């Protein structure tokens, strides 16, 4: 999928800036969700970690991330394969040199990318909560925000080989991802899986017979308020992504907004209904995970599908997230307190795939983009190639980076630190100083 043209109208630029400035609210929402789903004795450390990883991601993306990500039409490292040129890494300037901060598509891409790297870095915090050291998550974010995210974002949004699958090999319009279902959500989700595997489960999570026990989140209000905040952020993320990276007309943002809220709504309702049917009452944490999963799934095709398709995509996402949370815990030894792997990786993968199934809305009045996106086998194949890349390349890469980091700088807190709580261990003070540590969480079940 080719990207936007070289210029936007003033109205489009202003709208785009407003949309992008909403994106940090998605980060705030994710931070609240992760914190609420963790233990009370790690709440302050998790919020502090969220702030730190957003900061680290912004700085590394500024220093070299955007240079690696690049922008369509800008210099890039290429290699020839099968007689075609494959662009695999941006060749831009460090420190955002040569980016004119004038509302041009390139400058907007840099701003959106900076927030996108932060969002991707926030996702693994949910999987590592209650045991991931503050310093370790900052270093891990350096690797994610400075290397892995820009590399894959170049392939999708920077005119890289995935985006060129259409032009080079006739696979539809090439790999399409409007709002970051792959570049942000799956990227963060597979990193969360790597972190959950490398850190291991929390103490007391698994009994001697291998069955996982429930460790409920400490504040459902934070979680559900976080869900509302994420919606606002996602409205900005999907709208800005569709304009900046897919060149759709600013007026299409109405459709994008509708196609953002509908999947979230149907996913949350699906999760609530499923948990109500299974457990007798709707489960707040799984419903919240379903909501986020619906938002993640919406990011793939939000600018190119009909609202009815959005409802279906959300309902499927809610189903996938609800059951995968349990499956990951039971069968994959992945203790993921925030449900990040299910909500972001599963939701995002489904969102990427849904482009091949549901995307059929012609671009209208697009600036710098010609043609339409219509669901056809070539588009399917392009989306599958993107999914294969996420699982076959990004997952091993993030695991390898974090495994190496863990060898030189152990990422998991000591057993005593985990017993104390991350607040006391990392920060020296708790989020709720009037609370006592509940030692019964460590007694035999």
């Amino acid at each position, binding site marked *: 999928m080719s990207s936007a043209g070289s210029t936007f109208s003033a109205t489009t630029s202003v709208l785009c800036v407003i949309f992008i400035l909403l994106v940090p609210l998605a980060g705030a929402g994710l931070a609240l969700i992760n914190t609420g789903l963790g233990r009370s004795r790690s709440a302050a450390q998790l919020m502090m970690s969220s702030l730190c990883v957003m900061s680290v991601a912004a700085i590394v993306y500024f220093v070299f991330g955007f240079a690696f990500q690049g922008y369509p039409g800008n210099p890039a490292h290429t290699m020839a*394969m*099968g007689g*075609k040129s494959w662009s695999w890494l941006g060749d831009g300037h460090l420190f955002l040199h040569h980016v004119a901060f004038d509302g041009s598509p390139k400058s907007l891409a840099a701003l959106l990318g900076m927030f996108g790297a932060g969002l991707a870095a926030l996702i693994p915090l949910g999987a590592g909560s209650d045991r991931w050291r503050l310093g370790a998550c900052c270093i891990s974010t350096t690797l994610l925000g400075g290397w892995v995210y820009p590399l894959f974002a170049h392939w999708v949004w920077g005119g890289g080989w995935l985006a060129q*699958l259409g032009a080079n*090999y006739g*696979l539809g319009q090439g790999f399409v991802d409007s709002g970051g279902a792959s570049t942000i959500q799956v990227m963060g989700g597979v990193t969360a899986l790597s972190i959950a*595997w490398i850190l*291991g*489960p*929390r*103490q*007391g*999570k*698994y*009994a*001697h*017979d*291998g069955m*996982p026990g429930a460790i409920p989140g400490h504040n459902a209000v934070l979680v559900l308020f976080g869900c509302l905040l994420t919606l606002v952020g996602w409205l900005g993320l999907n709208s800005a992504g569709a304009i900046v990276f897919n060149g759709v007309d600013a007026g299409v943002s109405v459709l994008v907004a509708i196609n953002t809220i509908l999947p979230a709504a149907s996913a949350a309702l699906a999760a609530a209904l499923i948990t109500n049917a299974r457990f007798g009452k709707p489960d707040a944490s799984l419903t919240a995970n379903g909501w986020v999963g619906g938002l993640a799934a919406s990011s793939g095709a939000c600018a190119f599908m009909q609202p009815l398709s959005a409802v279906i995509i959300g309902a499927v996402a809610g189903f996938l997230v609800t059951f995968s949370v349990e499956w990951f815990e*039971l*069968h*994959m*030894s*992945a203790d993921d307190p925030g449900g990040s792997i299910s909500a972001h990786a599963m939701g995002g993968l489904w969102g990427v795939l849904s482009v091949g199934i549901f995307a059929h809305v012609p671009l209208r009045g697009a600036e710098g983009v010609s043609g339409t996106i219509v669901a056809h*086998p*070539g588009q399917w*194949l392009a989306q*599958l*190639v993107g*999914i*294969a*890349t996420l*699982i*076959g*390349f990004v*997952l*091993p890469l993030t*695991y*390898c980076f974090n495994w190496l980091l863990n060898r030189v700088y152990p990422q998991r807190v000591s*057993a005593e630190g*985990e*017993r104390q709580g991350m607040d006391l261990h990392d920060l020296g003070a708790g989020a709720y100083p009037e609370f006592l540590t509940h030692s019964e969480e*460590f007694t*035999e079940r």
Partner: protein
Amino acid sequence: MKILGFMLLVSGWAIVLTAVALLTRDVPRAAFVLAGIGVEIVGFGVLVRAHPVRRGERE
């Protein structure tokens, strides 16, 4: 086991890339892409087996 799982993941991806780059007809290309994804799924299964549930995780 972990190394085998990761090797299968990367091998599956290599099959997908090779199919896209070298095959021109739609059906063989799609078949090899699906085969590559199949290899990745097997690799992921091996990885899951390589991370068994840690029974009795206690302090």
